[in-house]
């Protein structure tokens, strides 16, 4: 894993991509810091961290687009997959390389906080919490980017689809406010999910029987949920969308709260997407 990590880190800085990511990220965040904090004298540093979040929509695809898709395009993935290292190590190495570049870029912005602390009243622990939150949020975004990159053979399409995936996550809170409630809408949603899972099983196994078994089990589970826990069932869409509410869970960090459930959420979200990435690559071995 270390070999992959080092190789990816070298690639970031032997090609312009790492410099472009860092340079543009710091250019825009420098603008925000200047206009939000320096020009007004504001010492509310976590509001600066909140303000630069939109930057991630564009910066994260830039960071992750080539990670796996480039291996497929240049056919070097065959070499990697036949090497002694596991797919998990490959994915972790690539993810960590992107994460370290991102974390190092954020480290530069600590100099902004030092300026605030020197000339004003900086709440240090709140700022530390803000950085913990933004690192966790960034790791989740990077995991999504790595996953999308594994699905694509083309860097540009990987960047494009990562951007849309992040955009969808961005507006998830807004979507939640307009989704219909009630048993019918949630029932339809539950069946779409069950059909999706059955389709996933079919694409994996090629077995109609396995897919039908999943369809039957899923339908029965949904029915049981409707009868046993109607309150949970009637909020199925909202609850499902909430699992993608990455930004909502970042808010406590900006007001000075380090919440255990938010940390667990980001870590598990990142882990699930890395696991899915491993599965996508593994599938190419046996499919």
């Amino acid at each position, binding site marked *: 894993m270390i070999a992959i990590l080092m190789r990816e880190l070298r690639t970031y*800085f*032997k*090609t*312009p991509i*790492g*410099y*472009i990511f*860092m*340079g*543009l990220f*710091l250019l825009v965040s*420098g603008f925000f810091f*200047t206009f939000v*904090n*320096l*020009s*007004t*004298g*504001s*010492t509310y540093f976590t509001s600066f961290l909140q303000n630069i979040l939109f930057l991630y929509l564009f910066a994260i695809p830039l960071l992750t687009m080539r990670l796996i898709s480039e291996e497929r395009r240049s056919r070097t993935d065959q070499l990697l997959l036949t090497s002694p290292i596991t797919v998990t190590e490959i994915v972790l190495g690539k993810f960590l390389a992107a994460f370290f570049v991102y974390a190092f870029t954020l480290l530069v912005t600590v100099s*902004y906080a030092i*300026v*605030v602390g020197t*000339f*004003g*009243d900086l*709440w240090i*622990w*709140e700022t*530390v*919490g803000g950085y913990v939150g933004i690192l966790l949020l960034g790791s989740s975004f990077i995991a999504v980017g790595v996953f999308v990159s594994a699905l694509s053979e083309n860097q540009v399409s990987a960047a494009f689809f990562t951007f849309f995936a992040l955009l969808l996550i961005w507006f998830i809170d807004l979507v939640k*406010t307009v989704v219909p409630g009630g048993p019918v809408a949630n029932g339809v949603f539950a069946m779409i999910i069950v059909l999706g899972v059955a389709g996933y*099983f079919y*694409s*994996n*196994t*090629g*077995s109609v029987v*396995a897919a039908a078994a*999943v369809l039957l089990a899923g339908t029965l589970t949904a029915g049981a949920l409707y009868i046993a826990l109607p309150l949970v069932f009637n909020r199925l869409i909202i609850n499902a969308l909430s699992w993608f509410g990455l930004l909502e869970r970042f808010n*406590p960090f900006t*007001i*000075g*709260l*380090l*919440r*255990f*459930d938010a940390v*667990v*959420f980001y870590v*598990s*979200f990142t*882990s*699930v997407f890395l*696991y899915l990435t491993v*599965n996508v690559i*593994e*599938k190419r071995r*046996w*499919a």
Partner: protein
Amino acid sequence: MKRLKYGGYAGITTFVVIVAAVVLNLLAQQIGWQIDLTDTAVFTLSPQTRATVDGLTDDVTIYILASRQPVNAQVMEVLDRYARSSDRIRLETVDPEQSPGIVARFDPDGRGLETGSVIVATQQAFRAIRRADLFSQDTTNPNAPQIVGLDVERRITSALAFLAGGQTPIVYQTQGHGEVDLSTAGGGRLGEQFRASNLELRRLNLIQAAEIPSDTAILSIVRPQSDFSPSEIAKVERFLSRGGKLFLAIELAAGELPNLSLLLERYGIGIPAAVVLEPDRNFNIGQPLQLAPQLSDSPITTPLVEANFSVVTPLARPVQELSTRPRGITFDALLTTSGQSFYRSDLANESLSMVPGDVRGPVAVAAKAVERDFVTNEEISRIVVVGNVSFIALVDQVSGNLDFLLNSFGWLEPQGQILSIRSRSTFRFPMQMTGMQQLVFAVLFVVVIPAAILITGFVTWLRRRYL
């Protein structure tokens, strides 16, 4: 067959991983651990709140009125702390447009409960807290009031204490000498602050009353413009002798008050008819008569020091410790001026500098004293004396003044009935930079650092493009 085996295995493990992640998150939500990283412990409930919550015997629902606009995140987090602190407390978000019955039930007078307001209710009773009262504001500039703190805990705990049927200590305010009525001071806002701190204000005419009522928690004498009669003083003395508590604020204009002075001598306190001047700019607010004295280390003033609050006392008179102090008396200055300060008895002299006859400071302008039985050391009575009344008029503008006043009452009646919870400051002092410093940092962060990185990237690309 190979595909079925591997594909089935991958599908099942993916399902298991996702379910495990969901369960893990549900568990984490249930545990609800969190660390409050704010400097002023904005999201940490005080021991007094915990005691109040633990003492609840009825189920309580905290309703928060919310429509499309999200409720302030800080308010929601503090309310969530209450809900997590007791099984008896439930938090419910209500949309007033969709549930107009709720508003009608809790706002029968139709005074208007705007979105963001909170209602604390049991089956029998309720208390509504308006959104504006959940925050403490600095209204020094009335055109641009600024939120400087969060007042959620004090409001909610006060409401819980009220609903739990706990006792509300009664403060009797003397009348008949031109005193200020605290319940109407500041357009009634001060009275609301006392209610929020679980204190009931009542009036008392000492001439008419045979004795000070037995249910008096604290006797308050604020701005007497004339002296008390010997019979009134005798009633106060009897009240203090049986364990009474006294809050006394005297203004400069009251002049000599021989009978009240005699009462204070019992506590080793002197209140000369003099004015305190403070030339040290660190301890005035631009003018020697406008004092911002040093805060001592005491239960009344230490919370203000921790919150970075100042107390402003314009035109204060000295509250001196007399050289001859009766046995059993402990005197502690609360607000003290600097070594450069002085006080002047000749009020006709308008000079702002020290002149012959002035007495060099430092001098206290507020003090507390405790009387103990010098044999058994048992506490008999407590008093707080402030050589200033104008500070009360400034409670709306200066947060420290309000806290100083309420903390004084809290110290006088330490039975836990008065809430010592204060607004949690969320204010931070802005950066103090010169224009040149701003420019230098702006150029560094917007131009120098990004350009250095981008140029390095360009050079790297130039060097390696043919490799």
